[in-house]
């Protein structure tokens, strides 16, 4: 019997300790929360605004709107609503989030504080340049360090996310090819292990996508790749380290072959965090590479954005960057905004890029410094290899190590058990972990891609390894029902995604009206 500090038994003998069905549906700290629309009381408002003077309107033929249909809530209701919702989320602040290729590392709060300085947050993008010299200086400083870290001569900060950066890079390649008079180069080689955004980007830009198979070692098959080169090849889109967590050993040979055939080398830099501060992409023969600031430089993911995807360029592609960009001369910093100047193209979005993310990324770079970045990428790789080594005898590693920042397993260890990768992931949730990336990359069966990042402690990794190992053992013992019923301890159990897609309900509608469904 456990005792509390006053000596009373905390659980009287004979108590029923089974988890009850509660009247409210709440379960202790897990509180059910209605939609804001279901908490509406007309006339209630969470903001106090002054009375509006009666002034003739200047709306011409446009009629003032009768009603929007928004619910009325008070401030305490709103605070409670979002606090309760937040408590239904797993986050990197909560625990290990080993989502391979997504890089969930600690998000320093200093970065948040810096991004909120009024001199950055309360500055309008169209103020006179003389009043934003510090903002332009910050962009210039970040550009400088991104060029230094990659060894590349040019960078654009414009893209709003990694996939947007891919667009910028592939547009630059298209522009450079057209400039050379080689509009006929329309084929892009993309390894089968690539992120889905790579083929989607190439296809959106009118390139045909030619997949390259992976070799038995999880890397690009150099001979197969070389055989696909030809006068219609625009280039290759290659992730390095790749999505199997492996460094492409033949990368120089790949780059040389592509260049020799007249193409360009686009590198998906999503996994730059594995090598930042230790390896210079410029030395790998790369022509363009995007950097996800939220992965390598710790800007928060925010439940799906905002991202920021600067792209570094080689000498060959440097003339073909999108506007705007910052230049520096004797009069200070200046934005080059207009397009049509020389071979620059664009623009790709409104204004000058994701400034709020630039501040955070620069704070991260300055905080780490040269020695900190060296240690960070080293620890990221060490942590991944440690997890791989510890799990090697229980799970089935897809390829031989060493791995880089993430380690890949497939579902051979589950063969014959009736338990799937998805089941393992769901059971891991009950153990208090966010699952690893599942079923990606596509080059192995039932992939489990684990990326611990450098901001996890050894003790945390040991606990994760212990949980995963015991689940693997349980699966091999044939306890299929346990897995298929998982998760059990979460705010919601498994959700019916098929029903959601078959008859989509994409917004709240008042109960009196039939739910809105797409055809």
């Amino acid at each position: 019997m456990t005792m509390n500090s006053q000596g009373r038994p905390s659980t009287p003998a004979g108590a029923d300790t089974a988890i009850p069905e509660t009247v409210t549906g709440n379960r202790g700290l897990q509180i059910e929360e209605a939609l804001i629309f279901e908490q509406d009381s007309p006339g209630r408002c969470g903001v106090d605004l002054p009375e509006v003077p009666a002034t003739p309107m200047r709306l011409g033929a446009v009629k003032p709107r009768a009603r929007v249909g928004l619910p009325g809530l008070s401030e305490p209701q709103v605070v409670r609503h979002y606090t309760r919702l937040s408590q239904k989320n797993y986050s990197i602040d909560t625990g290990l989030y080993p989502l391979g290729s997504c890089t969930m590392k600690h998000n320093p709060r200093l970065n948040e504080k810096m991004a909120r300085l009024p001199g950055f947050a309360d500055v309008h993008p169209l103020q006179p340049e003389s009043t934003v010299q510090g903002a332009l200086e910050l962009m210039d400083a970040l550009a400088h360090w991104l060029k230094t870290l990659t060894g590349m001569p040019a960078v654009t900060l414009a893209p709003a996310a990694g996939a947007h950066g891919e667009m910028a890079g592939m547009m630059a390649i298209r522009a450079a090819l057209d400039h050379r008079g080689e509009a006929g180069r329309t084929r892009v080689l993309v390894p089968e292990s690539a992120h889905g955004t790579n083929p989607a980007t190439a296809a959106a830009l009118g390139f045909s996508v030619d997949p390259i198979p992976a070799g038995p070692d999880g890397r690009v098959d150099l001979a197969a790749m070389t055989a696909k080169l030809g006068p219609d090849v625009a280039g290759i889109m290659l992730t390095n380290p790749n999505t199997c967590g492996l460094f492409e050993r033949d990368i120089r040979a790949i780059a040389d072959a592509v260049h020799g055939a007249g193409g360009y080398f686009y590198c998906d830099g999503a996994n730059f965090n594995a090598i930042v501060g230790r390896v210079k992409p410029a030395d790998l023969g790369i022509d363009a590479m995007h950097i996800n600031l939220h992965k390598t430089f710790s800007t928060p993911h925010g439940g799906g954005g905002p991202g920021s995807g600067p792209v570094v360029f080689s000498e060959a592609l440097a003339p073909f960057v999108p506007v705007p960009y910052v230049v520096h001369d004797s009069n200070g910093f200046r934005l080059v905004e207009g397009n049509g100047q020389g071979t620059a193209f664009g623009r790709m979005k409104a204004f000058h890029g994701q400034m709020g993310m630039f501040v955070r990324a620069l704070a991260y770079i300055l905080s780490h410094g040269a020695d900190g970045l060296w240690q960070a990428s080293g620890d990221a790789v060490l942590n991944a290899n440690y997890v791989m080594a510890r799990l090697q005898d229980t799970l089935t590693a897809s390829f031989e190590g060493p791995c880089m920042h993430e380690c890949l397993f497939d579902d051979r260890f589950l063969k014959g058990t009736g338990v799937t990768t998805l089941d393992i992931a769901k059971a891991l949730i009950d153990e208090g972990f966010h699952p690893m990336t599942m079923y990606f990359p596509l080059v192995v069966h039932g992939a489990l891609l684990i990326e611990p990042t450098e901001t996890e402690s050894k003790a945390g990794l040991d606990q994760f390894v212990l949980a995963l190992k015991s689940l693997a053992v349980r699966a091999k013992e044939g306890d299929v029902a346990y897995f298929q019923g998982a998760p059990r301890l979460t705010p919601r159990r498994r959700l019916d995604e098929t029903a959601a897609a078959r008859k989509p309900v994409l917004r709240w509608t008042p109960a009196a009206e039939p739910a809105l469904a797409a055809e």
Partner: protein
Amino acid sequence: MRYLPLTEADRHQMLASIGVSSVDELFRDVPQAARRSGPVEGLPNFAGELEVERQLSAMAAKNVAVGSVPSFVGCGAYKHHVPATVDYMVQRGEFLTAYTPYQPEISQGTLQVLFEFQTQVALLTGMDVANASMYDGATSCAEAVMMANRLTRRKKAILSGGLHPHYRDTTTTDARFIGFEAVAMPAAPRGGEDLVSLIDADTSCVVVQNPDVFGHVRDYTDLAQMCQTKGALLIVVVTEAVSLGLLTPPGEMGADIVAAEGQSLGNALNFGGPYVGLFAVKEKYVRQMPGRLCGQTVDADGRRGFVLTLSTREQHIRREKATSNICTNAGLCALAFSIHLSLLGEEGFTKLARINHVKAVQLADRLSGVKGVEVVNETFFNEFTVTLPRAAAGVVEELAKRRILAGVPASRLFPNGKNGGQLEDHLILAATETTTESDMDALVKALSEVL
């Protein structure tokens, strides 16, 4: 280094478990020539919080914060008062540091927020459904055009001369590289453009903005009907979301797609980003929509829950056949938007819109009394255009020296000779609920002196 939990003892133990003697050995697949021999040269070593704060604060101090001076700068980004609750809630770690909700059982917070956000956007725009957000208004606009191309199987977009030039350029960039035609009309500071006669059998869509970049508000009901007759879609762009609290929404005018910027609600100016793109459509177009969508469903116990849905449109499933390459949305900015709108509610949002309009009416009346200043607009919401007796850019510079941000010279958005040009004497000014009497006094006084 404060962010790295491993101790030297840990590292040794871990290397031993792996069976190597150094971390360098783990990098052995990297060609030797590409490996640095040591930490990056030129970058100082790690720095404490205080040191980093000093460096960044020094840069921040060189900028003039909008809130510290009278400011009338708008044109697609607006200074509004954001309630304290918004930024507090957004910084809860469970929202801030979560990833895309791939595991719905432990992401119901983010998912319910997105479902509520989609509903709010649909209500504001007067449309049937909205997605879970885009990068910003300009990329929303470009994606809307490409969606119209897919739906109509036509390849020509007509862009109004009242469309924000950044939105126009974002769309024409895609037109160039993705392969469709975008016909951009000359700048139309006084309106009066004939878009209908340009619609032909190749036209997929007409893109108009309301209020337009010069501030005019218009009823596009007739244009919507003409588009429908000719088999083209009407895309309505909104760069000032607060206007939707006062104006007839695009949905009621017959818009097929609404592409909007949501920065005005919940989000700081941030020197241009991150912002939040809004994207709303008629119900029948849902399956051609770009971006993430959140849908309602039930869990294994029959309880209501939410998931990402219709992902068969998306790149991680469809790869080269996806409707768009978009991977992220603007989740956290969408959350800020949603919280601000929850606080405002029906009463607050419509009142806020009226206050904005009244402030702009007051400002226009004040400025029309300044010698040499002519107010161009007969209609506007919270932003309008004036002409000055000389180049607006110079006037804005002079006023900036007096610590007044007087607005956006049209020449900044429409450089000489491009799409109409000849707008050197045009100045675009915005007023919001943050604009005070004394701000207006200062502007009027300074303008009277320099003109």
